């Protein structure tokens, strides 16, 4: 009997359109996993992912499937569904020959779907449209099929109607994967070329890369070389995910698996090419990029003693997610901490949450920033991601800031409010296309620093959650930016400085000081809060002095009450950072994110 044929495919979907549920159903239908073992959404195995209902780290699953008397191996490569992770998406697409395009039968095509489907088309993937959630009362599969044809330009006549939740259409999908997605080319005799599309860190086995063998073969015991990182390793274990790790001796061209080789070196592996050290390929596979962090923030322990713990935790996290960068940084206000880089805002939030939850750290997070190009009068160019590092205005020739192209898909009712939003964020209108009679694709150019505050939250709240968006980096542009300093009790607090556009400085200064007034509790003395550019004060307010704690009676020697009260007081203070003589709560450092409703 001939060896089973292989199909490698992934699922492209917008958040909430049912990708994870469908993946679960496929695992069940192919008996890769029994219903008993089935937790909801097996592939998302971080708690955080399950809670937020999104996939952050992609993984792979191998399914055995028999169709018309013939055996097949179906490799499902899970992809992250968020704009922050588009490089990872591109690598997992490169590992596939086909993709299921899931579109919600009630919601229709969304911005993220569009972005990823174009990526898939660029990778020459066979795309199978699947219209999901047809069981919903508001489902309109015909309209959605029409939209797929109109907007994306795919033939939707053979779109599969499905309800992953109800188990409808699952067999049709499996059949289509076999029939419509081409098998990989099986060049087993060429030198090994395997592409890493993901990796994670295992405490015992080191870094475990997931890869797709593009050419040649890899065996347990082989000496392999990672071409971009230029390191060699002995393969101690080779295996496939079913979806749990299952050992295997050899993986050939077309197959998907993982390896363990005691890899302890830090580095960014996704996109790298694995080859055989003894019989190497001439050239690596194309497309490897180092992850480029776009959004930066300062992370500081609330208690200075936790600095080493934070450092260790970041190192551990970096093993799992090598796209994080961090460098030690010192703040006059916050002490020792790190300036950390992330792929995007969501990525940043996820990492913060993981640090606080999994590593039990109390953190102060400064407002997110982007990388500015600062051109000095001396001709030198500095890359600045921390507002506190911005050179004096007198030394600067000009500043450039990163710009993104944003694409928003929204019901047309909300076009007005979204245009207001984009205008207020210094957006430049590019285009507006009607997808159908009710839905619009709006395109703007926007400075990234306007995006990283709360643009996405605003977009969602202004459109009752109906709009979706995607953005792409589109270069640097010269801009009139200034550094706005915040002074507490007369002293500038470096961690509260923000870089803003000159024209918005006054409004940001005024609303930020008001916001801080709400956040900073009364102290034993009056605390003036000022916003200033250089020595020019733009706004000023005061936190009045606290007048009173409690002067209670101590009855019959019951001092435990008093102690409890003081312990409570102390615990309250622990959540705050002493900046000079002012106790500042953690959220104050993120206050700049909460200004938008007022601006």
């Amino acid at each position: 009997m001939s060896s089973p044929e292989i199909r490698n495919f992934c699922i492209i979907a917008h958040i909430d359109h049912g990708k994870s549920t469908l993946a679960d159903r496929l695992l069940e239908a192919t008996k890769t996993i029994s219903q008993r073992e089935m937790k909801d959404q097996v592939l998302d195995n971080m708690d955080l992912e399950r809670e937020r209902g999104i996939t952050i780290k992609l993984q792979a699953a191998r399914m055995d499937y028999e169709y018309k008397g013939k055996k097949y191996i179906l490799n499902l490569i899970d992809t992250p569904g968020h704009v922050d992770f588009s490089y990872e998406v591109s690598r997992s697409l490169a590992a596939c020959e086909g993709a299921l395009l899931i579109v919600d039968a009630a919601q229709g095509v969304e911005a993220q779907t569009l972005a990823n489907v174009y990526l898939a088309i660029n990778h020459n993937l066979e795309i199978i449209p699947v219209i999901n959630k047809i069981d919903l009362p508001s489902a309109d599969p015909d309209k959605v099929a029409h939209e797929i044809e109109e907007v994306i330009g795919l033939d939707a006549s053979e779109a599969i109607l499905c309800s992953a939740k109800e188990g409808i259409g699952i067999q049709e999908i499996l059949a289509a994967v076999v029939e419509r997605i081409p098998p990989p080319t099986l060049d087993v005799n060429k030198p090994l070329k395997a592409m890493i599309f993901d990796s994670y860190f295992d405490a015992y086995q080191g870094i475990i890369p997931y890869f797709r063998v593009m050419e040649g073969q890899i065996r347990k015991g082989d000496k392999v070389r990672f071409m971009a990182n230029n390191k060699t390793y002995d393969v101690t274990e080779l295996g496939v995910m079913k979806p749990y790790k299952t050992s295997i001796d050899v993986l050939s061209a077309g197959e998907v698996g993982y390896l363990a080789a005691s890899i302890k070196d830090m580095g960014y592996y996704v996109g790298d090419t694995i080859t055989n050290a003894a019989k190497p390929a001439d050239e690596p596979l194309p497309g490897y990029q180092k992850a480029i962090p776009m959004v930066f923030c300062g992370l500081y322990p609330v208690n200075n003693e936790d600095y080493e713990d934070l450092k260790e935790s970041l190192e551990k996290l970096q093993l799992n997610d090598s796209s994080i960068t961090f460098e030690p940084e010192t703040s006059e206000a916050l002490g020792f901490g790190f300036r950390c880089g992330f792929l995007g805002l969501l990525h940043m939030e996820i990492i913060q949450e993981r640090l606080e939850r999994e590593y039990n750290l109390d953190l102060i997070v400064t407002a997110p920033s982007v990388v500015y190009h600062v051109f000095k009068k001396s001709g030198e160019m500095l890359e600045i991601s921390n507002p506190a590092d911005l050179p004096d205005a007198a030394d600067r020739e000009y500043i450039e800031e990163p710009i993104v192209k944003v694409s928003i898909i929204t019901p047309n009712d909300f076009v007005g409010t979204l245009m207001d939003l984009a205008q207020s964020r210094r957006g430049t209108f590019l285009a507006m296309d009607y997808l159908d009679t009710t839905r619009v694709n709006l395109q703007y150019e926007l400075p990234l620093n306007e995006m990283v505050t709360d643009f996405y939250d605003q977009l969602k709240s202004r459109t009752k959650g109906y709009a979706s968006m995607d953005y792409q980096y589109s270069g640097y542009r010269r801009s009139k930016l200034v550094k706005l300093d915040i002074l507490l009790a007369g002293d500038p607090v470096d961690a509260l400085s923000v870089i803003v556009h000159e024209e918005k400085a006054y409004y940001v200064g005024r609303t930020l000081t008001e916001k801080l007034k709400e956040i900073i509790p009364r102290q034993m003395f009056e605390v003036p809060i000022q916003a200033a550019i250089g020595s020019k004060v733009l706004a000023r307010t005061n936190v009045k002095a606290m007048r009173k704690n409690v002067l209670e009676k101590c009855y019959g020697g019951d001092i435990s009450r008093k102690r409890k009260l003081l312990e409570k007081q102390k615990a309250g203070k622990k959540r705050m950072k002493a900046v000079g003589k002012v106790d500042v709560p953690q959220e104050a450092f993120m206050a700049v994110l909460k200004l938008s409703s007022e601006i």
Partner: protein
Amino acid sequence: MFIYIHLPFCLSHCIYCDFYVELKATEDRRQAYLNALKQEIAHYLGQATHCSPIRTIYLGGGTPALFPAEEIASLLSLLQSFAPFAPDAEITLEANPEGMASLPSDYRQTGVNRLSIGVQSLQPNELKRLSRVHSRDQVFRFLDQVRTAGFQNISIDLMYGIPEQTMETWQDTLSQAVQLPIEHISMYGLKVEEDTALDTLIRQGRMALPMDEDTVDMYEFAVNYLAQQGFQLYEISNLSKPGFESRHNLNYWDNNEFWGFGVSAHGYINQVRYENARNLQHYQTNPILRVENHFCTPQEQLENALIFGLRKRAGVSIVELERRYSVDFEKQYLPRIQRYLDTGYLHLEDGFLKLDPKAIPVSNDILSAFMD
């Protein structure tokens, strides 16, 4: 020895009070309680290997004056059978202006030489709001009576921060209070304890407390005004004419040991802070049972000495602190209190650490800095 005895009966329940109180002080109930109390005292003092002379006794409650003088006398003589009274022993009885079970002179004869009287306010409407059962006139009459009966050391409780109290009514209360025959004033900010009737009324919006700012002004006004009238602040909440400081209370602030007897009483003996059963029935079933026994580590003892010692205007003697608790004060505490020293909230002078008067209203903030 310093002894606190809790006598839990009251005529009625005040809306702000969350201390352990029983109504209906009938003879049977008093006797049952006294029996338990005597059993407890005999058990513990009988066990103690050495009893130093009794320096203070504080009969608190509740309303201890609901016990007739002969019952109080029987308690005192039981104590005396275990340890002699020091010649200058301070024996305090708490009472309320609405009256006592026996004549004041009868109490005076038992050896009680100090009274602490729950006046709280001299404004009829404020007394009503606090659900106190006495009137302003009763206060004047009662104090005359007890003075005539021979009490030369009388303290009253006054309260500020009462719902709808104003600076004017507070000033009026103070100016009347200084006319009373008294040596000592305990002055407390009303604190809304959880699950009291007052707590409910406030949450329902049926009563409103004065603003924090105003209560601080009330406190500061009182401290200055009473000083002019001869009452010196010697502890955050206590003022007295010279020589009339409450030695029983100072003993708490000096972090010294004391016995506590009776239902829900607290004590501190052999480095253990203990608490008795919290309800009458439990207490009387087993009067020697302690529901809480907390051994104070050297660190806690040190913290308590600082937290409670700083309540005294005299402050904390650094030399004594270092000797008693084997601590290097500068090394352990100076870094964390430097900001308070710099801003003048704390003073370190002549070997004493003291709170500045302006720091008193916010003392919790400062005191918590001494806790690990």
